[in-house]
């Protein structure tokens, strides 16, 4: 596959995933924190086109899952009335990016007051897992993107400063970078979390995760940027610019940084999934975003219990849903590297 095409496909794929997650409110039928206490741990609802009498319907429908009469955990489809699934319908209000209120949902699966349609099953409190995966993606992705952005910014500034200035500043900054690389990041995060106040609302918790994860990881990009800056610094066009009286700041901004673009892009596509994974790890351990706010990490946290592992297979689905995301970034990284090689050769 041509490098350009591969890159294009990867970018398009990731853009669509990010788009779906950004518009989670549209794609998700439910609010992620709404509890349906009559249907805890309900299995995914089966979608039918052919009803019990063998008749085909163009509009898909489902039979709501209800608990068996004498059981608290086993479900049966109540086959009396098929509930049709409607598309592009008004529903619960949600906000895009936190400020744009909308009411339209892609599909709605609820038939008056019976149990709703669970595309991927429900959790311990009857919350729709599909909605929670989408909204959880918002949190996890946001944390990952912001953290990567922060890491890269700090790394670029410090790396460029170190590479350009050289001398003592360079030595100091690079030793600092060594320290940060050597720190076991997970334990550092655990330790830092212990210092913080008891109650954090979800927004504060997210900010905290981002700051801590991003602040820890600036060292590697910094080293790479420094390497580029060191090599570019000696190039002729930089010397020429200096000869014309350009200030240091101008040289860095106009001549050196553009050379680092490909490294920054590659680093970005590497770091974003890493930081998303860091947020997932923290939330899984109960130290990042805490329920009821959904994040991919705390959705997986339920799996730590043996009985969930044994009996409710749909609780694994968040892990499955994450796979396309990480694969996309993997392909993107490879594509960016190939393209960079193709361009420079």
């Amino acid at each position, binding site marked *: 596959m041509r490098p350009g095409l591969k890159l294009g496909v990867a970018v398009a794929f990731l853009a669509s995933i990010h788009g779906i997650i950004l518009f989670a409110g549209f794609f998700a039928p439910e609010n992620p924190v709404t509890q349906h*206490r009559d249907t805890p741990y309900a299995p995914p609802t089966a979608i039918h086109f052919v009803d019990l009498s063998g008749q085909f319907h163009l509009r898909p429908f489902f039979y709501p899952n209800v608990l068996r009469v004498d059981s608290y955990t086993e479900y049966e489809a109540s086959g009396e009335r098929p509930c049709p699934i409607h598309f592009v319908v008004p529903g619960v209000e949600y906000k895009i990016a936190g400020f744009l209120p909308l009411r339209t949902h892609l599909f709605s699966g609820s038939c008056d007051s019976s149990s709703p349609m669970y595309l991927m099953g429900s959790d311990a409190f009857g919350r729709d897992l599909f909605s929670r995966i989408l909204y959880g993606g918002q949190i996890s992705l946001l944390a990952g993107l912001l953290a990567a952005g922060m890491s890269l910014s700090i790394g670029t500034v410090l790396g460029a400063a170190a590479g350009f200035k050289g001398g003592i500043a360079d030595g100091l900054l690079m030793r600092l970078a060594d320290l940060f690389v050597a720190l076991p990041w997970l334990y550092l995060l655990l330790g830092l979390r212990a210092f913080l106040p008891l109650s954090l609302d979800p927004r504060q918790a997210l900010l905290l995760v981002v700051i801590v994860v991003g602040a820890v990881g600036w060292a590697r990009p910094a080293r790479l940027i420094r390497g580029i800056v060191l090599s570019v610094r000696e190039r002729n066009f930089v010397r020429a610019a200096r000869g014309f009286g350009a200030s240091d700041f101008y040289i860095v901004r106009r001549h050196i940084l553009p050379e680092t673009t490909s490294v920054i892009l590659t680093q970005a596509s590497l770091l974003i999934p890493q930081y998303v994974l860091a947020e997932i790890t923290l939330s899984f351990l109960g130290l990042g975003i805490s329920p009821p706010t959904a994040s991919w990490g705390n959705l997986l946290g339920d799996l730590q*219990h043996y009985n969930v592992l044994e*009996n409710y297979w749909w609780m694994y689905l968040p892990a499955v849903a994450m796979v396309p995301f990480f694969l996309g970034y993997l392909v993107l990284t490879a594509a960016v590297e190939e393209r960079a090689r193709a361009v420079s050769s």
Partner: protein
Amino acid sequence: MFGPRKLLQILTVTCALVSVTAAAQNAPPTTGEDLQRVSEIAGQPGGQIVVALRAEPKTLNPVVAADNPSKTVIWRMMADLVHINRASQKTEPAVAKSWTVSRDGLHYTLKLRRGLKFSDGQPADADDVVFSFHVYMDEAIHAPQRDLLTIGGRPITVRKVDAQTVMFDLSKPYGAAERLFDGFAILPRHLLEQPYRDGKLLQAWNLGADPKMYAGLGPFRLREYVPGERIVLEKSPYYWKDDSRGTRLPYLDRITFVFVPSDDAQILRFQNGDTDLVDRLSAEDFSTLQRSGASRKYELADAGPSLEYNFLFFNLNDLNAKSLSAISAKQTYFRQTAFRQAVSLAVDRDAIVRLVYQGKGVPLWNQLASTNKLWGDPELPKPQHSVGSAKQLLGNAGFSWNASGDLLDAEHNKVSFTIITSSTSAARVKMATLLQDDLRQIGIDARVVTLEFRAVLDRVLNSHDYEACVMGLSSGDADPNADLNVWLSDGSTHLWDMGEPKPATTWEAEIDKLMNQQMTTLSPVERRKLYYRVQEIVAQYRPLIFLASPDVLVGAKANLGNFQPAVLDDHILWNADYLYWRRN
């Protein structure tokens, strides 16, 4: 057919075999030994059981032990004068074979069994009993059970009448009568008197000490302790019970306790057959085991409503002296009874029983489940979950709501607080999550924070740095005296307001008076009336907002004989001396 020499050989060998087998069994009763005959059991000696503990015991010293794992191990090795049968909840003779009470209820005369021996073979008599109770009542020792021996404001006195008889003198009669003596292990004077005189009793009998330094009157004795792995107990040959065939108890040769900290690991090991009994199953684990019990290797039991009660409470401590001003500010509405009543109305207790206990539990409006016929007040109101009534109550008490539905207090501050709970209790975390959603319906923004259990205890008992908390307690006995520490203002588990030498409110003063009164009332009818009144006051002022109580869910291997789960602690090992392995 056999010649005379051959016959003699056979006879000799047979006699040798018989005498060898006889010696391998328990020491037969010597003359003058008073054994307690347990006639309704019939088992075979031999075999061992493996049980998992949720944590490593902290000590093997009965005077110091406060945590459950320590008590589980200690009480297989110790015995008390009069024991409450955990299954029937009635008292029965133990080390004391009989007792009489004076008509005014002030003097208890207990007759000990003859021929008692500690597990190391040393004789036990009235001197050991007197020594033990002196230790329990010694103020310098500060035993946790000391308060239970203070009746009517004065500690009881004990004296030896003769080698087999002791007399206890009370200053006021004790309503629960001989139940008083359950839980006080008889300590060996020959091993502990010296450390006591040297002031080192509290350090004696901690885990690392030599097994030969331990002795008790219980069915088992310490054999080995491997730190971080296991404690092994072996049968005591001098235990004072036998069965109807004259076989000395216990039947089992050994009990091995392994340390398995997580519930999930406990289930796995029980399923694999590594452990023989499992205690305190959660409802989900219970149904997981039921589903996979197709091989029927084990037997699960639901022993009915337990004495564990879970509740939400607010920090009502006097915080003026501390720098917790944010919490102090919230206490203006925490202290409003109407606020607590409204929170109680907003709680959906049925959802808790359904979602947390899968129906294997009961909702609680008071400390005792309504199924408790003995002490539960049947006339107590059970206000059903109603968001409308909660809102009405709040509205009348000066609260209001803003445009987005958030609850505001009288000064128009948003009502929001943090609920802490222990991360190791999956049930309580779930309860807290349900509560959070319930409180959202009345406009309260509650946040759930899970902390390690010891951190929760520290905040509640010591630093008072918390706003609200979901916790659970378990009564040792259905009798109200078991929970004196919760209801008395200076009690060690008066959780919502710790360390008050004097009651902080008039209703707490009333509760103190009633609890002290019922402790020294002899008539059961009168005691019940007094305790009903306590329950009514608690229901009116709601210092603890009760949530639900789980059933006792346990399991054991199918061929374990005499397995009889009990509602009182220890649910599975209370009759460890009767357990045996069925051979067929």
